[in-house]
């Protein structure tokens, strides 16, 4: 008598040979297979932050990797771990992915040791995005605090690519100290070529700082907001959300026209590990971009 439960060799199923396409949700695929990338360039921005430019080696995989502003990816550093990083490049740049990374944990610490030419892997893109089409023919206010400018660069690049479709675009950017200000080399280009109304502020000035000092909400006095026709995109530390969104709410911008990008711990990016739960919502699947109304309804979001 033979009662052997047969082994169904799951590796023979077709999904195992295909390149995973993370756009195609609910299909069975090799979810933990990353796209192998070469670090093509490393730009030191401040002591704590660097901009990494990556190119996906395989042309097919490079074609698959198309993202929307606000989405993030999981960056794998073999032997060290995997971290969620927001995509900081233009959606029209199909050759390279740019990631603005702060040295904060053990994976990013190792990444800062990496040299040009090293190979890492990415999985993604994951998550929701800013509804850029919805904002067309309207004014846009982008508010960034500290490293919050990294995820805001994607929607800003989008606006720059489609500049004629948007009306007045204000960018408010605040950091703790002048030395922490990122992408200062692009400010002139954004102001002069893309006609972005850029305002910067620091919490604590240094003797050589000529700009404004104070909290980011101070910058609102410098711009005129037309609440009927304005969308806002806010990204920064959780305390900033509250002050900025409350201010914009008082100005009359409806909550569903304010968008924030939340940060959470993540280990999968696919709604499985549950580390990024907010209320009963996954930051990785339903977020990281939420409108402020959803955020208000999510418990413990900010």
């Amino acid at each position, binding site marked *: *008598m*033979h*009662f*052997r*439960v*047969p*082994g*169904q*060799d*799951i*590796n023979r199923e077709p*999904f*195992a040979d295909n390149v995973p396409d*993370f756009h195609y*949700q*609910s*299909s*069975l*695929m*090799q*979810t*933990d*297979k*990353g796209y*192998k990338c070469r670090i093509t360039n490393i730009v030191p921005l401040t002591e704590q932050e660097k901009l990494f430019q990556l190119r996906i080696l395989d042309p097919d995989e490079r074609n698959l990797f198309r993202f929307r502003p606000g989405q993030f990816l999981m960056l*794998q550093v*073999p*032997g*060290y*771990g*995997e*971290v969620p990083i927001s995509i900081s490049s233009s959606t029209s740049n199909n050759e390279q992915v740019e990631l603005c990374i*702060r040295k*904060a*944990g053990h994976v*990013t610490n190792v990444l800062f040791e990496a040299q040009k030419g090293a*190979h890492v*892997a990415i999985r993604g893109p994951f998550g929701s995005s800013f509804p850029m089409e919805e904002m067309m023919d309207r004014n846009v206010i982008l508010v960034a605090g500290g490293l919050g400018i990294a995820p805001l660069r994607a929607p800003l690049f989008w606006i720059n690519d489609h500049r004629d479709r948007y009306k007045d675009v204000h960018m408010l950017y605040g950091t703790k100290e002048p030395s922490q200000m990122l992408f200062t080399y692009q400010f002139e280009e954004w102001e002069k070529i893309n006609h972005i109304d850029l305002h910067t502020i620091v919490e604590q000035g240094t003797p050589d700082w000529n700009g404004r000092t104070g909290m980011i909400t101070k910058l609102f006095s410098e711009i005129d907001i037309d609440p009927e026709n304005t969308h806002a995109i806010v990204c920064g530390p*959780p305390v900033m959300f509250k002050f900025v969104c409350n201010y914009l709410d008082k100005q009359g911008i409806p909550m569903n026209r304010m968008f924030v990008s939340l*940060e*959470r*711990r993540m*280990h*999968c990016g*696919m*709604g*499985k*590990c*549950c*580390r990024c*739960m907010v*209320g*009963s*919502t*996954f930051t990785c*699947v*339903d977020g990281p971009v939420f409108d402020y109304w959803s955020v208000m309804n999510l*418990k*413990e979001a900010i």
Partner: protein
Amino acid sequence: MIYKVIAKPEFEKFIDALVKENLSFGPRQVDTDTKGQPIYQFKEVSSATDIAFDYTTTYSSAKHFLMPFRENLSHFSYTDGDWEQEITYEVKPIVLIGLRPCDISAINILDSVLLNGHFPSPYYLARRKNTFIIGMDHLPLPDCFCKSLNHHTVTSGFNLFCSDIGDSYYVSINSSKAYNYLKEFEVQDPTYDDDCKLIERRKLIKQSFKTDVEVTGLPSFLDIEFDSPIWTKWGDKCLNCGTCAMVCPTCYCYNMEDRPDVDLQGSSRQKQLYSCNLVDFAEVAGGHNFRPKNGDRLKYRYYHHYLGFAENANQPICVGCNRCGRACLADINPKDVINDLRMEKESCMICISESPDKT
């Protein structure tokens, strides 16, 4: 589903034949607790005599056969400053014997979370496809509350389910594989008497529950009571050990870790089951913890279990086995926490309005 009746000695013969051919796991007594009661676990068995068919319930759940505590998701091998990622989904087929209805319900819930979500898990699927499940009903322990959550019976998710009707088992056959195996043994079609016995057995089980947890409208309670002081009260008791999640049949949250090989020529990316009660569960790089307090984390576990998450169509994932309550070192159990929460709402001690008269 096809129903058959098999005499108990014949059933043992069948199990013996199945167990001898396959890697099988069944309930075995591993120890006794401080009160002298036996402690059972699912352990490898090599013959039918190894299996404690009359066991109460196991201390840990059966989820670890489908989601091992540690699982290699991929392997990186290093060569000349470069690396190659390898992923395999090869698993050995296993037979699980003696799962209780709540255990099978838990597996069904895991299926809906891990196979129907946005990104189905191939690792879980590989194991699930290669698992042969034989379920068995039982009389509830005094603290079981699966009836409150409607998980005291189960209609899918198993290959074979046996109800004890005295001298024989009333068998529900849910797969052709199981049907073919049983062909070799002496089985009868159920008679009218057998059907009656089954109904009586089900009634007996239903009436034996001593613990009842009122879950009607619980999602709404939880939503409203987000800032309730009871979370601090129970949170202060919690030791953040994570035991509840380890023994829970449906807890599936995990952690990812890269482990270097001993020869440093590669590394494995490992998934490790985690608990939302552990302090660093929601801590991000830079040190900010989104759930810094015990109460926050305990509350989150109850939210996940009774409110459910989007991946699971907002269905509660608790099956009412009370393993977490039994294992808890601080004496926290779902029944007390939920009753406390409901009391707080039904006869509020601090607010002005009086409770309505009981009718």
